[in-house]
């Protein structure tokens, strides 16, 4: 599924790299531990987290993730947005908490294995 489709269906707000929404999402990973994401997420995954500081951008681009969804209405710090723009990485936000969002992603066919 394309990132644009997910954004539309889940009503996500895009905060960075608005020109880079055409990528294919290969699966998903949800974790707030950066080392865990580094170890277990896969290229093309979408990452669900509540961390908002700019190191999430480094982790996501290190693993060539397709984008980050920040949950529970958390907003990225300005530095995070700046860095994400530089790395052309899509950051999205939603009011939904992790459990709800991941459930809906799964229903849309985004799996974690």
């Amino acid at each position, binding site marked *: 599924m394309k990132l644009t489709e997910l954004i539309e269906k889940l009503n996500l707000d895009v905060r960075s790299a608005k020109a880079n929404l055409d990528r294919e999402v290969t699966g998903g990973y949800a974790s*707030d531990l950066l080392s865990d994401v580094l170890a277990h997420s896969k290229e093309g995954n979408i990452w669900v987290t509540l961390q908002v500081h700019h190191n999430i951008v480094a982790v996501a681009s290190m693993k060539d993730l397709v984008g980050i969804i920040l949950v529970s209405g958390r907003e990225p710090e300005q530095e995070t947005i700046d860095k994400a723009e530089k790395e052309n990485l899509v950051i999205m936000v939603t009011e939904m908490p992790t459990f709800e969002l991941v459930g809906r992603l799964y229903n849309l066919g985004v799996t974690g294995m």
Partner: protein
Amino acid sequence: MKSDSRISKVQELVYEIRVRDVMEDNVVTVSPQTPMSQLQDILREKRISGAPVVDKDKLAGIISLDDFIRWLAGRQDDCPISEKMTRDVKTLYADEPLIHAVNKFEKHGFGRFVVIDRQDKRLRGIITKGDIIEGLLKKLEIDYHKEETQSERIQRFFEDIYADRIALFFQYEVAGKDFKRAGESSSRLKATLGRLGLHPQVIRRVAIATYEAEMNVIIYADGGKIRVRVEPHEILVKVEDRGPGIPDVEKALQPGYSTAPDWVRELGFGAGMGLNNISNCADRMNLRSTLGKGTHLSIHIFVEDGVKSETN
């Protein structure tokens, strides 16, 4: 197109790709005898805005939605398409380079061109601007994938150098407790290795291992250095800090063991997985630490083993 003197990839491609590579070859055609009244249904059903008119395998003309509207507006009686079609059809040959198509679109402002065979002049397909764009994008994507999987530029570079030993050396300074710039060195290293054309899988392993080591230096020490040696067969990343040292190296290597303060954990670091991640990415790893002096970490990643996953 820009009047830049350098040739862009797209400019190169429009000379390389032929019209037949991107045209639509499953063409809906109409016969000259078809009545105009039926044209609307054909166009709507097939979701097209025009069609070549073919008579006994030969291109007789072209009829478009515009022609139909003009006929409708004129309130004329029904008649065969042949009376309303454009006879002087601008065509392209299937074996022409795409640049000819681009130029013709620019010159005539038409929405589509009929593509015919250079020899027997038979209809081969139809081409729109959309087909050209789609064809270019597909080719760019294929080329990009090829670059990702095949081209190991650095290997060719090494092959062209005559020496008993070849190595490239990069050094990065890491400032302690500087979370603002955390991960910068490994990002720069990742970009550098990408430019050298190493296998993406190798790059990812080096980048992850270096990132974790860099974070350790930032969290626990007052700064350090990352030295990277790239050789044809392996990449060595040496991370040295002047930090407090690790009291129990064995324990530190256990997954989940961490001495990180709470504020570090709240940022999502300090989960006790860093060294573990490093050793998963490394083919060989060596950790030496002296209390009160600092820690030296060596990470070896073999280049031939490049396709090994970073997550196993």
